[in-house]
């Protein structure tokens, strides 16, 4: 039987929203306070949902320690306590939570094979969150 397992992780990082494709005035009007050149930070919560048949022997979709280990190594160690603008993928891309959500999805999609990745949901604050499910539209 197919079940969906979701796990939430916390990391803190700083960023500045600024696009080289825009004038200073445009950046200011588009990003407002988020355009502050010194940057600012968030406590991000990343919620990863994987799915698959529940293994009859273990009762699990996948072993949680595998998922925790992967996210710790590949996501939390990469972005936690960093300035996102200095990370390779954001040197040419604005580190909005939309783009960060897509990047995390791609990392998990590429490297985690113990279960099927359904979606990544990223909370920037308690008041806003973003979800990405790759090419599939159907979010459950």
């Amino acid at each position, binding site marked *: *039987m197919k*079940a*969906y397992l*979701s*796990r939430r992780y916390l990391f803190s990082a700083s960023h500045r929203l600024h696009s080289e494709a825009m004038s200073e005035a445009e950046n200011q009007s588009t990003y407002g306070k988020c355009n502050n050149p010194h940057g600012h930070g968030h406590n991000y919560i990343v919620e990863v949902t994987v799915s698959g048949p*529940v293994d009859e022997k273990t*009762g*699990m979709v996948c072993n949680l*320690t595998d998922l925790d280990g992967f996210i710790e190594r590949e996501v939390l160690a990469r972005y936690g306590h960093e300035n996102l603008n200095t990370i390779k993928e954001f040197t040419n891309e604005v580190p909005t939570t939309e783009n960060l959500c897509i990047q995390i999805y791609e990392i998990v999609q590429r490297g985690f094979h113990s279960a099927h990745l359904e979606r990544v949901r990223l909370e920037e604050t308690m008041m806003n969150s973003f979800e990405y499910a790759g090419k599939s539209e159907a979010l*459950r």
Partner: protein
Amino acid sequence: MVYLTRKAEFSASHYYHNPAFSPEENRRIFGKCNNPNGHGHNYTLEVTVKGEVDPRSGFVVDLKQLKEVMHREVLDAMDHRFLNKEVPEFTHQVPTTENIAIAIWQRLSTKLDRAKLHRVRVYETSDLFVDFYGEA
């Protein structure tokens, strides 16, 4: 179609162990959860039902009835219990959050009158939850 979700909480203990595995395998696969004396969680259950809104009552489902069914079928059986020893589903199945969600689905799906069960979500902690939609 309107979706209605009702929450409930229950506290229970469990441990993970499969007699088909060797003691070493059990420890390797299940880690700390393999402690035979058990450990516990405060589970949060979210039951989502779906249906058309009844034009006379304005309800998808009578919430009082849903609450009663959840209490009778799930909470009376699982709240303040040792799942491995006291809940029949888990005498032969590991009481993981996945299997708890499936067991709750099976307990509820035939007991609802008008509305159709859409999703059972079980939070083991605020950072770990499982969804089951009745898929084979």
